[in-house]
């Protein structure tokens, strides 16, 4: 018989080898250290770059194919959502404040991540990590773009989103996520990969994208569900890359272990502090609660991170020490954060409010050890005051932690009635910290962190007023000047949800959408 046998296509592993290592070459007329100048100074020793392999074995051709499909789906849904007036289907208008926070706090980080992976990937002599970093870099700019597109629909109707990028670079609390990523991209390429690729992507992003986006879906926000899960489908790949990078570095040389352990310790804590915003989104800002911050933390950090560090134990890597303090904080984090934003509602680009009675009950049930004892009485007092017309807006400026840049709102580990306060004297100046972990990070790299652009210091130094402002004139209103600098309109973009234009407009529009007269 003369059967023709079809030539077998290359298998996935061979295709991956051909499309990564097969496309690489060894430079002949330039020295390796000139081409990859940042690869040595962090002290990481790599002996064989070819040991790095993407476990998904994704090659660029397949990457474009599946990303294009994700984009087509995403934009079909976004278009239909807008066409359908989907914004009126969110549970209630308070929900929109999560969108504002997401857009101004998180989307700009996606863009910085894009830059970070483009930069770090360029520095690695191995083709495997270069291709993986290129894909992640493209993913991240996609996320920034799709988030901006998705939210642009909300921006047509609701306040506070009109100049999100301007806000990201200026508004006080946004210096927390901004400085976190700035810290990462100004590190060396290996530390960047551990900070973002491993600690942030593998250990922490689940907490941002999974339960929150799942919650957004059940709060009627099909746009957030769609961009969120579309982004998260890339994150699954990022997480794999993050885990792979750690294993690769650790397997290359035992000298790498203590360096990597320090980075893991630092970046787990740094990332956790940034997630303070997410904790409060989950527990306070989704009108329909789907999972508490504490439950999310237990599933995605304690259980999942626990399994991870048990697995990494064979390399000598340990669960970061900060996990102990985090465990103590999980009953308090979201409440302390929300209290702060309730206080500072006059200076934010979104609205805050006191939870209603049902929501208080939900919080009691989810936080039996802390809520009724410590936070409910405070809320009830504020609610009472607001009902009397004394809604409290804190107009003094808080002390910030030099490392995480969060106001000093956190309590002593084990004593939730006492503010935790640490300080360090360095070259004649005093620096303040919210915790032992932020203090330790500073102490290891003081020359980096003394440069921090702290919003409160900057306001006091007169750097956060519109150009030409004279703060010495009589009756000068510093808050008004700062809001102008933020490009926020007092009484429209800030203050309590109850007095907001958003609340009024949403009620009116939803009414129009359901009534015939």
């Amino acid at each position, binding site marked *: 018989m003369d059967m023709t046998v079809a030539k077998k296509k290359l298998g996935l592993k061979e295709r991956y080898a051909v499309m990564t290592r097969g496309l690489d070459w060894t430079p002949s007329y330039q020295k390796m250290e000139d081409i990859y100048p940042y690869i040595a100074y962090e002290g990481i020793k790599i002996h064989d770059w070819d040991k790095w392999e993407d476990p998904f074995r994704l090659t660029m051709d*397949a990457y474009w194919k599946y990303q294009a499909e994700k984009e087509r789906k995403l934009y079909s849904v976004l278009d239909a959502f807008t066409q359908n007036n989907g914004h009126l289907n969110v549970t209630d208008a308070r929900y929109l404040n999560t969108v504002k926070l997401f857009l101004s706090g998180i989307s700009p980080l996606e863009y910085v991540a894009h830059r970070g992976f483009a930069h770090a990937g360029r520095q690695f002599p191995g083709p495997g990590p270069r291709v993986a970093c290129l894909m992640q870099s493209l993913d991240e700019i996609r996320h920034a773009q799709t988030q901006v597109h998705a939210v642009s629909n909300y921006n047509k109707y609701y306040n506070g989103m009109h100049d999100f990028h301007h806000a990201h670079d200026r508004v006080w609390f946004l210096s927390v996520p901004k400085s976190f990523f700035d810290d990462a991209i100004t590190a060396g390429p290996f530390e960047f990969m551990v900070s973002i690729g491993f600690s942030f992507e593998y250990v922490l992003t689940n907490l941002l994208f*999974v339960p929150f986006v799942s919650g957004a879906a059940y709060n009627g926000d099909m746009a957030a569900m769609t961009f969120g899960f579309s982004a998260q489908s890339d994150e*699954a790949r990022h*997480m794999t890359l993050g885990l792979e990078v750690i294993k690769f570095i650790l397997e290359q040389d035992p000298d790498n272990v203590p360096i990597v352990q320090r980075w893991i310790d630092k970046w787990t804590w740094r990332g956790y502090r940034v997630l303070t915003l997410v904790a409060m989104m989950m527990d306070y800002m989704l009108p329909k609660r789907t999972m508490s911050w504490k439950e999310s933390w237990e599933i995605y950090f304690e259980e*999942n991170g626990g399994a991870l560090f048990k*697995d990494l134990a064979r390399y000598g890597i340990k669960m970061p020490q900060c996990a102990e303090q985090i465990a103590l904080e999980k009953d308090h984090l979201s409440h302390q954060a929300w209290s702060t934003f309730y206080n500072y509602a006059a200076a934010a680009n979104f609205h805050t409010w006191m939870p209603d009675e049902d929501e208080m009950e939900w919080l009691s049930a989810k936080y039996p050890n802390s809520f009724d004892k410590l936070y409910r009485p405070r809320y009830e007092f504020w609610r009472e005051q607001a009902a009397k017309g004394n809604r409290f807006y804190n107009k003094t400026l808080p002390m910030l932690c030099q490392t995480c840049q969060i106001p000093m709102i956190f309590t002593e580990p084990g004593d939730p009635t006492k503010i935790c306060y640490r300080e360090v004297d360095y070259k004649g100046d005093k620096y303040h910290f919210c915790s032992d972990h932020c203090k330790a990070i500073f102490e290891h790299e003081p020359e980096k962190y003394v440069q921090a652009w702290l919003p409160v210091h900057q306001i006091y130094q007169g750097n956060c007023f519109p150009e030409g402002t004279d703060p010495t004139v009589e009756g000068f209103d510093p808050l008004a000047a700062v809001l102008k600098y933020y490009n926020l309109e007092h009484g429209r973009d800030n203050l309590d949800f109850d007095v907001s234009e958003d609340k009024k407009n949403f009620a009116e529009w939803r009414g129009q959408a359901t009534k015939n007269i």
Partner: protein
Amino acid sequence: MSTVFLALQTNEETRPIIEAILQDNPSAVVDEQPAMVKINADGRLVVRRQTIEELTGRDYDLQELQVNMITMSGNLDQTDDEITLFWKA
């Protein structure tokens, strides 16, 4: 053994994939969350192309899973025939 998991979007494309996973992994347990399905398994979870193809009656490229994957936990290894998630310890 620690838990590995894979979370997928709740939609028509993932229904047979979830069914295939449950068929191939006796320890797999489905946890239905809003808009997503999380599948937990004890130490190891395998997604097999052949089972998906049997259930859907069409060719399936495991890389298609990229489109509907949300998150996962565990070390990963992907070949033409299987995606495996596992912990070594």
